[in-house]
């Protein structure tokens, strides 16, 4: 296996994990329903217990997504996490509260009350997709960093990757294009959450409310997504040649779609599936909209990662020093390590199979008001 193949393969897996992560953020989107005033406390507990059986998968996918970046593209891990410090810290804070909120929220000894932890879940519901989207948005807008490997020999300033400003990532909130992707993701996960609830919970009042949520989110979602897409296709992108020299190229991401027709097809199929799922959730009585929308989300996110990293593109560009930009060639682990991880990754289908099996077993019986009232095993 060539080094180039392995680097491409691992970027593919990063894209796949990214796609699965965004899909699984239906947990975050569904938790926003905890703020729905039309829901009784029992109905809110039904929502909690529905997402409470899935949140660990989302969380684990986030951890694995971070771990996969560390393992396969460690220069991204060291540059982005150490540089865009505050963005990642904010994301972590929102997830830390989520991790304990399910277990703690309904206990009277929890010190901050039921509402406190439910608010924490809702904050995570807004913040997590927004920050992930904005962070991925900087893959196209660029960030303010430099990479100098000789620095490690200088005792007075040994850090290889340095950030160019003291905002340490918060400046991304001022990058219109990156924020558009953050908002897109926020509304998308809200829709996915509503579709998931529709599928997983048996309660007519809840169904009518989440139908309404889907309808309310369609317009802002489409607006943000289309604005982001149009800007992406007409903006200047970061190209890298065979020698590894990075340069600016007009319509780079449009070129990437046109020069990689398979990715374009993947993207379009994904978009159609997402729209089909949304249509089902908003305008029909079908409860299966989560499946086309979920699969479509995975495909679209993968296509976005492909145009960010493949076809001679710098996936984490530096707007301070173009040649510091990270590409899948200059930021990856060694050939041997990628190869060992390649063999390990062949276990992924087996892992997916047992997750699907366990998920299927657990979801055969939908969540009902009776279950929440009667069972001792609940949040």
């Amino acid at each position, binding site marked *: 296996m060539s080094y180039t193949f392995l680097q491409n393969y691992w970027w593919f897996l990063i894209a796949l994990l990214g796609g699965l992560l965004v899909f699984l953020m239906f947990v975050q989107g569904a938790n926003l329903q905890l703020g729905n005033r039309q829901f009784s406390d029992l109905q809110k507990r039904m929502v909690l217990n529905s997402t*409470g059986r899935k949140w660990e998968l989302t969380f*684990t996918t*986030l951890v694995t997504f*971070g771990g996969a970046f560390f393992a396969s593209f460690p220069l991204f891990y060291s540059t*982005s*996490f150490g540089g865009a410090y505050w963005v990642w*810290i904010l994301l972590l804070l929102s997830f830390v509260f989520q991790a304990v909120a399910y277990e703690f929220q309904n206990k009277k000894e929890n010190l901050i009350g039921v509402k406190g932890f439910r608010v924490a879940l809702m904050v995570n519901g807004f913040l997590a997709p927004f920050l992930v989207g904005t962070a991925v948005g900087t893959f196209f807008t660029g960030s303010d960093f430099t990479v100098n*490997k000789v620095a490690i020999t200088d005792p007075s300033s040994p850090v290889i*990757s340095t950030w160019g400003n003291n905002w340490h990532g918060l400046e991304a909130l001022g990058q219109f294009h990156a924020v558009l992707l953050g908002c897109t993701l926020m509304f998308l996960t809200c829709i996915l959450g509503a579709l998931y609830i529709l599928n997983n919970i048996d309660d007519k009042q809840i169904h009518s409310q989440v139908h309404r949520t889907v309808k309310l989110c369609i317009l802002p979602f489409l607006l943000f997504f289309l604005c982001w897409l149009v800007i992406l296709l007409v903006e200047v992108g970061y190209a890298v040649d065979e020698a590894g020299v990075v340069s600016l190229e007009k319509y780079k991401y449009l070129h990437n779609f046109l020069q990689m027709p398979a990715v374009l097809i993947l993207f379009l199929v994904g978009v159609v599936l997402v729209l089909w799922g949304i249509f089902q959730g908003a305008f029909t009585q079908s409860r299966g909209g989560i499946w086309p929308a979920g699969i479509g989300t995975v495909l679209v996110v993968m296509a976005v990662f492909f145009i960010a990293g493949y076809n001679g593109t710098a996936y984490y560009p530096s707007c301070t020093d173009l040649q510091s930009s990270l590409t899948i060639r200059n930021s990856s682990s060694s050939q041997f*390590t990628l190869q060992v991880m390649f063999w390990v990754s062949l276990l992924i289908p087996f892992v997916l199979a047992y997750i699907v099996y366990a998920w299927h077993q657990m979801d055969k019986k939908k969540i009902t008001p009776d279950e929440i009232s009667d069972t001792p095993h609940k949040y």
Partner: protein
Amino acid sequence: MDVIFWSRIQFAMTAAYHWLFVPLTLGLAFVMAIMETLYVVRKDDFWKKTAQFWMKLFAINFAVGIATGIILEFEFGTNWSNYSWFVGDMFGAPLAIEGILAFFMEATFFAVMFFGWDKVSKRFHLASTWLTGIGASISAYWILVANGWMQNPVGTTFNPETVRSEMTSAAAFWEVITNPVAVSKFCHAITSGWVTGGIFVVGVSAWYLLRNRHIEFAKKSMLIGAIVGLVGSGAVMLSGDSSGVHAAEFQPMKLAAAEGLQDGGNGAAFTIVPGIKVPKMLSILATHNPDGFVPGINDILNGYTDDEGNVVPSVAEKMAMGREALVALSIYRTTDDPSEKAEARYALEENVQYMGYGHLEKPEDVVPPVGVVFWSFRLMIGLGMLIALVLLLALIAVWKDKLGAWKWLLRAAVVCIPLAYICGQAGWIVAEVGRQPWTIQGLLPVNVAISSLSAGAVKTTFFIFLAIFTLFLAIEIRIMVSAIKKGPETIKE
């Protein structure tokens, strides 16, 4: 205080909090798996209810372990940027295996275990309970492979092209995953989790017996807790012995600090507490030879010759060679002259094993805080032995039906619950403070491993995390105590 201080204190605080929750997860997972197995095999609902009670406590604890764990993973990148790049290639494969094999196993089967009682078959549920515990243990193995490599960096080659440690062959990979330090660390950490889980169950059961509540539940739980805890205690002692031998071989400064040994020699004595020594015992523990040579802090600083005639250079000499390596690396990376490049590469390869020493300011920088390590070591051993004794007596008391008569033992068992946590924290202080100033032994000191951040930024996040983790700990203790007070019937909320 600078960014290095705050980065270290933040990581230490996160790791310390994480280790408050993980041992109970590791230990309790197997206690409740054994109980559920008894339920399935004997078809006795008593064991189902018993397992469900401990599972309830497990779930309360598990969530906080996850919350602190994710912060630890991401702090490698956020606060230790240079370190992440330097080790990324070495940790890649172990982390990939951990993520794919362990994390998803834990996450998937925890949900089945907790919610699946009425949704899946008995056998599938039992398998899920075992797989949750096994997943946590597999996860511990791979993260300790990474930790073990930081203590004893085997199977690595420094690549001047990429400026990082790299794994270049299957033999190197094998060396990394079978690193003796990693194996003994895994055994030590995982079995100390069994001790914590065991004494927790014994202590809580003792509390019920003292109050004359849930007698049958408490006695039977105590039996299983004591067995798991005692097996763990035995394994902790064996793996502790091999940890001592490995410290002597790979991290002699850590051992010297743990012993407060200024000047070493052959037939070294073990200090129980200052003023009380056991002749030759340190040599036996460190080398398995009563006359073996154990270097002291001054020997390591000034250089020495070991039992096999190997000359170990002084720290000053290592620093000089390290600086030559750094100069050679700088020339190699910046020159375009092929002959100068070749010369620089040769000089680098000659001195690369001491490159980390080139970053030190003075030889004394390699000495960790001796007092902290010395007393933590004694605290760990003393408390560990006390807990093992209490577990043994608890087993005898259950066996001989003496629990009613030995009230003092029941009180001691309750007191041992917090002591087990202090013991575990002390152990990690020995392991991690004892290896200062190295993030990677001999290769990368903490002052070079950091991110380019201001001290103020890291200080802010330190206090944020401290407040959050302390809040979570307080809530966990309140919920746990409340659930214990209510007793096994709490499973019928």
